């Protein structure tokens, strides 16, 4: 499961575009759909601001 850090996020929305299973949504805040996320971490690699991390 991916955790989103609002303070670090700059709102670029690149994580949403790089998610291969469509688990992320950008609606102002970044929302992660837990049942879709397969922990591939593509969003973490693509985030320019280190605003996403592996949550518990």
């Amino acid at each position, binding site marked *: 499961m991916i955790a989103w850090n609002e303070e670090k996020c700059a*709102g670029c*929305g690149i994580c949403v575009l790089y998610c291969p299973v469509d688990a992320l949504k950008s609606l*102002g805040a970044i929302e992660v759909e837990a049942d879709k996320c397969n922990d591939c971490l593509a969003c973490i690699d693509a985030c320019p*601001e280190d605003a996403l991390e592996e949550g518990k």
Partner: protein
Amino acid sequence: MKKLQYDMLVIGSGIGGTTSASLLSKAGYKTLVVEKLPFAGGRCATHDYHGYKLNTGLNTVTDDCHGALCREVGAEFEMRVTDNQWVYRIHGQDYPQPKSGKGILKTMIGHAATSEAEADRLMLAIKRAMAWAPPSYSWSLDEWLRQYTTNPAILGMFQNYLAAAGAIRNSELPAGEYFRMMKEIDASGRIWGYLPGGGGQLTDALVRAIRSMGGDVWTGCPALKITTRDGVATGAVVRKGGESIEIAAQAVICNAGVKKTVGLAGKDLFPPGYLKDAYTVKGAPQTIIYFTHDRPLIEADSVICLTEARRVFMYSTNTNACPERAPRGKHLSGAAAYLESSLPPFNLKGEVEMVLADLRDNIPGFDKYARILTIRVNREEWGLMKTWPGFTMPVKTPILGLYTVGDDCGPPGWWCSPAAVQSGRRVVEDVVHRYRPA
């Protein structure tokens, strides 16, 4: 550690970085561009999202600025100029903006003014500021305008224009910078158009040109550190495919924003005065919403400009000019909005609610027929600009051989992507006088 030698090292592949690298390659400098993201372009990239081509930032270009650069470095450039009708919604009524000729501003102020005397008073003040004495930078455009009018429709028209041009509020822009921009505007080009496949076509074409001239562009390759010796930049350590590589270069040109540049070189190398200015730089935020629909929702070829809405200042259907940007039969539209303030913290939820309320109020059938693709509150480093207009940094840093480029380092009066192009041009002009290709 593996070591490589280049004449010039560019960190970041946004417009400032690719402008610099393409002009340097053309001038014969062996140039390397490193980009930490998996794609080139930064805020000038286009991504496919379920068949829709969404821009990370840049939407429109001019032939005089972007086209001239591409021709100079041998990059493809195909600008689609449309016959868009800009429509200002004032007091609930739509007024088309005259497409050309003198007196556009006068005509539009006339629509919003409550009397001819009010319009004349403001126009005279604008003329005097342009032709005789502009106001200083120590007070805002809002304060300057309110000397002549408090009419919300007129203030809204200026707010609409500033939001589109620089993502800033009337109350945040130094009045002097507004008139500086109005004077410089012709140099950036007045005729704007679209790149058919999205804004990212610009940096994609520049990257191809850099490579075709013998330069290298590495994506997914973060710079870990800018290296220096005795206050002189010597290159950088970068990470490529799990390996650290030391790049030696005569000069380093950083397109990562001034604060990140300081971080990469080491804060203790910079004098406090420079750091004070660098940390004053703050991104100009903007909310961008992309939505799709099966039937037309916005008048064809119109750009609707709202002057009295809560947040949204502009919306249009991108696929009218560029049907390539959506799957067949689908429309792609975009709306842009300012925020309550350009200073954090931002209330993301509240901002988005206001944007949606504006779209519902202004676009009949929005709730029923529009499907939202993304809503982004672009802010900080990913704002419309990396700095508020009027608060730019010089391209030269206190470290010899370390330059910064981007829209946060443009000349006074230059905003957005033309500012980034111009920062790159200025750096290259300086480089050719100081360094020789090996």
